Structure formats: structure tokens, C-alpha cells
């Protein structure tokens, strides 16, 4: 499967340099954060609720601008990109939002929402090609085609989350950011969704950022881990090393809380 205008690159890197974000002149949500991910990597960002994980994710995918600092993709600042470069960035860095409820338009049929990004960027030549692509992705992710003929209010949380994932995957991103992709689902479904994400990651050699507050999950899915506390990364490194031998007191307390 290949999309039009696809640059085939292996040297993909998404970087945040000294990024800070202040909401409304007072909430310091991110404080001089440095972060990077390459194609093929699995990285986890762990932190308690309100620590700034979603804010970083939204800045990384260009959804909101940082107050200071810069985001670089393919060695280019995203706010200095040409239209062409920006288009590639928008297609190749995808974000799966934290709340699946309003992740898709409640008045649209899921099929139309699913293919909407392809249509916006005119990535598909014909209806037939589009349908084939959808069928292929849905089979891979485990979405029954009849589910796509419904609206978001008439499907289960698990089905909705799969469609949201499929929507991002259809664009064949280099970097996929999943913001607490399973926090709204019951445990039996969580494992399935995580497996789907991991399968996709290895199949297409994507760079995948998992955002979670679950250390067990982080251990299972990631090679590298970033621990976020009050808008700062207090610790980062290889997941195994950080979790076995934490240096920062916050990380230690996280590990304690998780095991108890």
C-alpha cells in the first residue's frame, strides 16, 4: 500500500527543542521540554493527569503552537515550512486524541469520517481504490465493514477507538502519537487495542509515541521512556533502565504507587 506524493525516507525524526507552553498567561503547562523520536522507535511519555502530556502531543503534531521553543520535522522547523513541506508534515505525523467520544463528528457516518483525511489531501485516485484501502485497513484492525455504516453514537467505545486508529493509519504516518489510547476502554479491550497498535508499528516501521499514566503498560510497549512531572521531563532513558534504577524521587514514587 502506497500513497501518492509519498517521499520514501528512512531518516525521519520529530524533535521538540526547549518547548514551553503557557495557557492564558498563567498556566505553565510545559517548561523547556526536549524530546525526540525517530522512525521505528517506540517511546512512552508517562505522567500523572495534568502534567502536560496532551499539551506536548498537540504541539508535536502542530495542533497548537508552542509559546517558545521549536518543533522540527525532517530537519525543518514546522513554523517555517513551505506549503508542500507542511502538507507532508500534516499527513505524516498523526495524533490519536485522548477522548474517543468526540474524536469523530457525531453527525457523520463512520465511513465518511474514516476516509475524510484521504479526501482532504486528495490522496486517492478513485472510489474503488478508496474502498479497497479501507477494506484492507479494517481487516487489519478488526473493524467489521457494517460498523462503518453507523454514526459514532451507535457503536461501542472499542469500535469507535478502532475507527479513530484506522483513520490515522490510512495516512501511513511516519510518526503516530497515541494519547492514552485505552484509558476509556475496559481491560479486556485495552489489551486488544494495544496489540493492534504494536502490530501496526512494527509492520510499517512507524515511530510511535504512547502517552499513558500506566507504568506496566509503558514497560510492555516502549523501548524509551520519558517521565513527566508538572510540565517537565524529570527523567528519561531506556525503559528497562529507568524503571529498574530510577534516579528521580518522582519516578520512585510512581513505581511504588504502581506496584501497590
Amino acid at each position, binding site marked *: 500500500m502506497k500513497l501518492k506524493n509519498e517521499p520514501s525516507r528512512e531518516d525521519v525524526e520529530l524533535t521538540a527543542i526547549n518547548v514551553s507552553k503557557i495557557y492564558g498567561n498563567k498556566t505553565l503547562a510545559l517548561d523547556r521540554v526536549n524530546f525526540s523520536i525517530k522512525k521505528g522507535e517506540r517511546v512512552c511519555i508517562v505522567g500523572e493527569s495534568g502534567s502536560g502530556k496532551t499539551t506536548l502531543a*498537540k504541539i508535536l*503534531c*502542530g*495542533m497548537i503552537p508552542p509559546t517558545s521553543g521549536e518543533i522540527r520535522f525532517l530537519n525543518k522547523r514546522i513554523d517555517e515550512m513551505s506549503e508542500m513541506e*507542511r*502538507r507532508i508534515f*500534516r499527513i505524516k505525523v498523526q*495524533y490519536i*486524541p*485522548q*477522548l474517543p*467520544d*468526540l*474524536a*469523530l*463528528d*457525531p*453527525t*457523520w457516518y463512520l465511513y465518511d*469520517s474514516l476516509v*475524510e*483525511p484521504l479526501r*482532504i*489531501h486528495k490522496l486517492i485516485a478513485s472510489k474503488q481504490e478508496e474502498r479497497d484501502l479501507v477494506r484492507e485497513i479494517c481487516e487489519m484492525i478488526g473493524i467489521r465493514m457494517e460498523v462503518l455504516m453507523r454514526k459514532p*453514537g451507535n457503536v461501542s467505545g472499542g469500535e469507535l477507538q478502532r475507527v479513530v486508529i484506522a483513520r490515522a493509519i490510512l495516512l501511513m504516518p511516519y510518526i503516530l502519537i497515541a494519547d492514552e489510547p485505552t484509558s476509556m476502554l475496559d481491560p479486556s479491550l485495552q489489551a486488544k487495542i494495544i496489540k493492534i497498535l504494536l502490530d501496526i508499528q512494527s509492520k510499517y516501521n512507524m515511530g510511535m509515541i504512547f502517552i499513558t499514566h500506566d507504568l506496566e503498560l509503558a514497560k510492555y510497549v516502549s523501548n524509551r521512556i520519558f517521565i513527566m512531572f508538572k510540565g517537565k521531563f524529570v527523567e528519561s532513558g531506556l525503559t528497562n533502565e529507568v524503571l529498574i534504577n530510577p534516579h528521580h524521587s518522582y519516578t520512585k514514587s510512581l513505581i511504588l504507587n504502581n506496584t501497590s
Partner: protein
Amino acid sequence: MNKMEIIGISIISCIIFMALLSFGIGSIIDFPKSKQYSPPSIQNPLGTDDLGDDILELLIIGSRTSLLVGFLGALFSTIIGTIIGALSGFFRGVLDDVLGVIIDVFLVIPALPLMIVLAAYLSPSFWNIVIVIGLLWWPTTARLVRARAWQLKSAPFIESLLALGASKTYIVFKHVLPNVLGIASARFILSVSHAILIEAGLSFIGLGDPTNPSWGTMLHFAMTRGALLYGAWWTFIPPGLAISITSLAFIILGMGLEQRQKLSTRSMEDII
């Protein structure tokens, strides 16, 4: 369907049936003329007016104009209000400031006196009344739609479309408008009720379309031609009741729809 919707729809169906019946007067049904101001009888169940015309016949003919003006005036004002509200709420910025001021100005101007002035200034005709109602009744709808559009702007699916590079015009027409259609239609039904009352008021004071008599026109003639002095209560009670019941039916239906709207969006308001 909830109870309010059922009650509202039942009454409105009867009125619509009445309006349709008006096309059959002279062919399917016939109302005999009688003496001036004859009281209700077997022959004229609701009596006659100063010209000896059957009141039931006039009531049926009047339902057509009252309903149609109400419907079209409400449609017109809802379309204006929805589009202005959606654009203003979604784009914010200068456009919203300007539209916000316009909405506020229209909201503080007492609408009814202005309508009277406008209706008197334009010649009284069916379409002028529709236009006057439409032009002056949109701000409340606009304000509601604007609030919803503003909420929608921070919904994840809109944020992700913006990040994807979708144009704002595309988002407004493809996503914001369909999502405000729920409140817009509830507002529309409530507006029909208002529009019927306004039309009745304008016709009552003689600013109605003389060629398309409505229930308001009946009240107008009852007053100006001495039915009150004559004690002919059957000339003004039926149209008065018809106006009240019809506008009440639309209010009940509109409240039913609004309730459903609240139920279906509660989870959304909790999240945002």
C-alpha cells in the same frame, strides 16, 4: 418521542389538516351564507360575521395564511440566525466582534414596535410580513447557535481537522452546521409559534395582507366592524383560541425537541 412532542404534533397535524381543507372549500365542502351576526346554529356551527359569512369557513381559510406566514417567517429567521451564529461562533475574531454587536443591537431593540413600523412602512403584503418577521427574529437563534459553534471549535474532531489542514470554510459547512442543526430545528419550531403570534398582531392592527385573510384579520374585523358592540362573541373567540392553541402547540413541540437536544448533548457538554 416524548409526551410533549406527541401532544404538539397531534395538535399541529389537526391545524395542517384544516389548512389543507381550505383548498376544498367550494368543491368538497360548502358553507352557506346567512344573516349578519347570526349566532352558532346547526347550519353555521360557529355563527356568522357582519357580512353573513360563516365563521368556521373563515377560520379554515385563515389557518392557511397564519400557518404559512408563521412557517416561512420562522424558516427565514432560522436560516439567517443559524448561518450568522455558526460563522460568528466558529471564526471568532473581528467577524465575531462585528456580528456580536449586530446581534446585541437587534436583541435590545424591542422587536415588536420595530416590526409594526416596518410593516406599516412597507406595503402590507404576505411576503413583506414574512420578510419583516425573518429580519427581526433571528438574533436569539444566532446567539444560541453561536454558543454551540464556539463549543464545537474545541471538540477533538474539529481540532484534528484543523491540524490536518482542512479549510475553515469546509469545516463550518461540513461539520459545524450539521452539528448545530439540532438546536436550530428546535429553535425553528419555537420561532413558528412566535411568528404566528406576530402575524396575528400585525393583522389585528390592520397591517396584514388584505388579500390573504388570517386569524389576525378576523380579529381585526371583529374589532373594527362592531362585533364587540353587537356582543357577537363567536366572531372573536374562535380565531383567538385558534391562535393561542396553535402557538402553544408549537411551543410544546419545541420544548420537547429542546429537551431531547439537551439529553443527547449532555455528555458532550460534560467533556468540553
